[in-house]
């Protein structure tokens, strides 16, 4: 069971997800259920979500990822950290992310 991530958490894509970039969009397929229903259980990430996903290397904390994204977007690291915590929480809840706390 994945815990709720914090800014100090280090996250990585879990083995329970297939992530494929197709025509610029990142599509995530959770494999937790026995059968993946193409009608109901797929997720797409937009451009910024994709940048977040690519930074999930199992080394950087979410705070560090927020700092890196803040350098590329017109938003503060605090704002982005709050946003990616929400997204990471949703992904972890669906077992698509592993969460490691220090």
């Amino acid at each position, binding site marked *: 069971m994945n815990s709720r991530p914090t800014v100090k958490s280090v996250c990585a894509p879990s083995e329970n997800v297939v992530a*494929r970039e197709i025509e610029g969009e990142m599509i995530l397929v959770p494999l937790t259920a026995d059968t993946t229903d193409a009608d109901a259980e797929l997720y797409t990430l937009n451009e910024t979500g994709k940048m977040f996903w690519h930074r999930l290397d199992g080394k950087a904390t979410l705070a560090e990822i927020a700092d890196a994204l803040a350098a590329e977007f017109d938003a503060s690291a605090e704002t982005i950290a709050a946003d990616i915590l929400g997204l990471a929480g949703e992904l972890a809840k669906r077992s698509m992310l592993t969460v490691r706390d220090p």
Partner: protein
Amino acid sequence: MVRLSQEWRHKVKTACSPYVAYGKERLLTNAEQLVLLRETVAHGAHWRFEALGHSMRQAIRDGDMVTVAHENGDPKPGDIWACRHPRNGRLVVHRIVARTDHGWLMRGDQCLTDDGEIPPDALLGRVIRIERRPVQRLRRKLAARLARLWRAAWHRES
């Protein structure tokens, strides 16, 4: 194509959207389905999707839900498999009809000719379940067809 729904669209705050991805509804193209089916089945999971077309009627009707799974053994003639079509590269679900020197021959039940030789790496998974299309989907398709006919008749008159 199949509908792709994202439940977290409703769960992630709207304020997140300028910076962080949130879900949206879209349709998967045949090419996207092929890539995702291959990956998912390779991970040992099953892939369930809506079959379109009439090449496998009566075994699979247009709109039926088909589940594809990884198969360890060799395909057997008579089995229905998902594969990448050797000529056009599209995802198709057809029946194995024979073994060849370098692969298998497949053909849709309603097709007059086979698909050509399918190499082993183009076989994606075996169909393990076929569910008849729900009545609602049938009604939706019927409504869409009627709407198309109505639009065509309207353009003809105007």
